[in-house]
C-alpha cells in the first residue's frame, strides 16, 4: 500500500542521508527498522509521514504518488506519527491531545496504554517522559490511520510498559487488516515481534 521509489534525500549537498532507496510496506504487517544512531531512520519516517519531501523519487500510496498539495490531507487521514520526542501540545491535557485529531472518546484509548482518567485530565507536559510517550502512542492509535509510524516508541518505557505498547502496535496491524505499522527501534524485543525486520544502512533499506 505504501511504497518508496528511488528516494534520494540529503539535508546538505555534501552528504546524503537516503540514497536511491526503494521499499514497499504492505497492510496487515508490522515492520521494524533497525540501524545505527544517525543513519537516517527518523528522516525515512518523516518522508513516509509526509513531513518532508524527498529531493528525488516519490512516495506512492496505493500505487499513486502523493503530490505536495495533498500532504496535509495525507498527514491527517493516512498516517499517524509517534514522535521520538512525543511532541504533545503543551496547553492541552492528555485527553485533549488525542481529541486534537479525533472525535472519539479518548479515555478508553488512554486506558489501554495505562493512562488513567486522572492523568488524562492533566496537562500533557506535566506527565513523566514515559507517560508522555504512551499518550503519543495513544494519539496515533486513536487516529485510525492506515499507516502508523513509530519512532522508538518504547525508548522511554520500562519493560512491562514497553511490552504492552509493542503489543498494541502489533495488534493494530494484525487485528485491523488494512493497517500497517512501521516501527523504528533499537529494541530486540520489538524487532522479534515484527513481521519484517529491515536495516537502514548506507542510505538504503536491506
Amino acid at each position, binding site marked *: 500500500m505504501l511504497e518508496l521509489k528511488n528516494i534520494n534525500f540529503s539535508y546538505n549537498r555534501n552528504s546524503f542521508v537516503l540514497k536511491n532507496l526503494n521499499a514497499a510496506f504492505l497492510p496487515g504487517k508490522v515492520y521494524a527498522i533497525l540501524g545505527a544512531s544517525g543513519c537516517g531512520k*527518523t528522516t525515512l*519516517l*518523516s518522508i513516509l*509521514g509526509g*513531513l*518532508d*519531501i524527498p529531493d528525488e523519487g516519490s512516495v506512492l500510496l496505493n500505487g499513486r504518488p502523493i503530490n505536495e498539495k495533498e500532504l*496535509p*490531507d*495525507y*498527514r*491527517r*487521514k493516512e498516517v499517524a*506519527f509517534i*514522535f*521520538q*520526542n512525543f*511532541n*504533545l*501540545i*503543551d*496547553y*492541552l491535557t492528555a485527553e*485533549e491531545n488525542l*481529541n*486534537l*485529531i479525533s472525535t472519539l472518546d479518548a479515555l478508553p484509548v488512554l486506558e489501554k496504554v495505562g493512562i488513567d482518567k486522572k492523568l488524562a485530565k492533566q*496537562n500533557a507536559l506535566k506527565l513523566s517522559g514515559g507517560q508522555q510517550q504512551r499518550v503519543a502512542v495513544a*494519539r496515533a492509535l486513536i487516529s485510525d490511520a492506515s499507516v502508523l509510524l513509530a*519512532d522508538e516508541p518504547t525508548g522511554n518505557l520500562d519493560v512491562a510498559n514497553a511490552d504492552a505498547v509493542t503489543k498494541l502496535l502489533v495488534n493494530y496491524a494484525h487485528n485491523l487488516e488494512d493497517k500497517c505499522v512501521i516501527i523504528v527501534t533499537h529494541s530486540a524485543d520489538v524487532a522479534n515481534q515484527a513481521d519484517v525486520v529491515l536495516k537502514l544502512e548506507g542510505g538504503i533499506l536491506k
Partner: protein
Amino acid sequence: MSPVKRAFHYFTRKITHSIIMVLTLTAIFILILTVLSATAAGKNYIHQIKLSFSKNITLSSYRSTDVLTCENIKKIADTLGAVNYKCLSNTLPAELLNEAGKPLDVYLKKDILVSAGFEHAGTVRSNSSSEQDELFADGTFELTEGRHLNKNDGGKALIHRNLAEANGLSVGDIIGLDFPGEIVEDLSGDYDTENMDLKGSNVQIVGIFQTAQPAEEASGLELSHLLCENSCFIDMNTYSSFFRSDGSTFFHKVTFTISNSAELENAVNTIQNLDWIDWSACSIWSDIDVYGPAIDALSSLNDLLETGLLLILLVCLLILIIIISYGVKRRKKETGILLALGITPNSIVLQHIIEALLSTVTAILLSIILSGGIVKSGSDYLINTTVNQANENGDASHNDPGILKTNPVFTLASTTIYSAALLETALVTISAIAVSVPFMRKKPNELIKI
C-alpha cells in the same frame, strides 16, 4: 478539535501571553476610543453650535442708497431662498417741532444725558410699514390710537403717547421734523451727509403708540433722544426724501431669515459672492461672526485628530504585528506538531485569529469598564481647551454666546464604541493574518525537531 476550541484553550491556559495581549489591546482600544470620541464630540459640538445659530443674516449699507432697494432685497431673498426678510428701521435723530415751528417738550428722565443741541430731539424711525418694524413686531410698542403707516403713505407719522400728552397732540395734528446744525454734525459720523438733503419736513400724526413692555434697561451711556418715549415713526417716502437717491425706496439695513441654521454659512457666502454689491459701502453680519473662531478651532482640532488617528492606527498595527509575531514565533514547535498531525494551515491561521479576537473582546469589555473615566476626561479636556482658547482669541466672549460657555455634554456613544471596536478588530485580524500566513508555508520538519 475545532480551531475555536484550540484557540479557547490557548487563550485560557497561556495566561501570561493572554494578559499581555489583552493589556496591549486595551491600551490601543482606549487610545482609538479617545480619539474617535473627541472627534465625534467635536463634530457634534460644531453641529450644536450651528444649530443654535440664529437664522438671521443682516446686511447693512449706510453709505450707499442704491444697494438695498426693494428690488435688490427681493433679488437677494430669492437667491437665498429666504423664508422671510425684514427691512429694519432706518433711524435718524431729528428735532421735534409743532406746526408753528416751536420745539416740543420731549421726555427727559432722571439722570439722562442730553447732548448739546438735542434738547428737543427724538429719533425718527422708518420702515416700509410701521407694523413690520421690529419694535412693534417684538411687542415693545403697541398702537393704541389711529392706524399704522404703510408704504403708500406720504407725510405721515406715529408718535408716542408720552410725547402726545406732554404737548397736547392728537391724531390728525401736524408736527415738524428739523435737522439743526448739531444734529447734522452728529449724523455725519454715520451717514454720507453729502448725499443727504436734510431740509426737514412736516408730517401729520395718524397714530399714537405706547410702550407695552419697557425696553431692557440700557447699561452705561443713555441719550435722551434715543428714549422710546421720544421715538416717532414716519412713512418710508418721507424718510427717503431726506436722501438724494433715484427715488426708489431703499433701506440701510435688512435682515434675511433662512429656513435652516445649518445653512447659515452657505447663505452668508452666497451673499458675499454677489458681485453687484459694493462691499466697500456694505457690511454683513451673522452669528458666524460670533462663533466663527470656535468653529474654526474645533474643525482644525478634528482634522488634526483624524490625521492623528491614521497615524495611531499605523503605529498600533506595527505594535500588534510585533507582539503577535513574537508570540507566533515562540509557537514554532506547536505549529510544527499541528501541521504534522495533519491540521491544515488554514485551521491554524484561523486559530491564531480567533485567539487574537478573544483577546480583543476581553480588551474591549475591559476598556469600556475603564474608559468611562479615561476617555471622557481625555476627550473633554481636548474640546474644552480648544473652545476656551477660541473664546479668548475670538470676539465670541464679548457677545456672550451662551452655548460656548456650557461644557460639551460627553457621552460615550455606542456608535463610537462600535467604530473603535471595528477598527481594533480589523487591526488585530490584519496583524494575525500578516504574521501567521507566511509561517504556514513552512514544512513541519522546518518547524520541529522530530
